[in-house]
């Protein structure tokens, strides 16, 4: 039931990774994408910081997916998830 939710968020996450790869390639081959796209040079992220953000988001994505499958598909829904105690106590 929730699989398309993960697929949709994963699609946005992939887009973030691909944007980082694009910025890396454009920077590596000296393509002035900042000028072509009319970006403000003061606030443009480097490819490294985009990859760092995407890595953090991917970790959260996989952690939540793992917890969901543990609770839902593996039949562990009788066990109260420790990670949610902070939200509900």
């Amino acid at each position, binding site marked *: 039931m929730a699989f*398309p939710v*993960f697929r949709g968020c994963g699609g946005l996450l992939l887009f973030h990774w691909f944007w980082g790869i694009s910025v890396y390639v454009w920077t590596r081959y000296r393509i002035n994408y900042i000028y072509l796209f009319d970006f403000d040079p003061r606030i443009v992220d480097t490819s490294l910081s985009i990859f760092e953000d995407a890595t953090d988001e991917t970790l959260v*994505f996989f952690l939540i997916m793992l917890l969901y499958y543990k609770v839902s598909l593996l039949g562990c829904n009788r066990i109260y998830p420790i990670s949610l105690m902070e939200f509900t106590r």
Partner: protein
Amino acid sequence: MPIFVAPGIYPFILVLYTFKCLIFPWRTRVHLWRAIFLVVSAPLSSPTFYHSYVGDVFTSMIKVFQDLLWTLCFVLSGDFLVHETANGTPIGLHQWQSSILYKKVLIPLICLTPLWIRFNQCLRRYVDTRQRWPHLANAFKVRHFHGMIIRSSLTLNLWTYCLF
């Protein structure tokens, strides 16, 4: 404190986290959202190269938009709060995913909207530059995809009935 938690809480937390990542840090995201607004309102403002790029990316993200629509319905219907039995069967799910509104209106609409935006951009570029090539050719190409989606969404059941 509740003893059992609906498994759908986890996807809901992921939705909230994704939403947060799309908005913050606002300093860098504001330009993305401004560009998206200008792309969506394409016929009203002249599209730049970046806006055309974003419009092209949107036409490639139709499947993601369908999943985001599913996510929206999943959250708004409250299905993420549904509990499951011991063998994993959900109890009391809503049936929005098999409704006519979802299957015959919202899904074709979400497929058509990015192409419609791109079509508007091409026409606006033609009006601005008066160059038939490549703007009208691109508009014709996008219009062709429009027709394919409309035909497939309206006649899919008929074809399925005829062939099988």
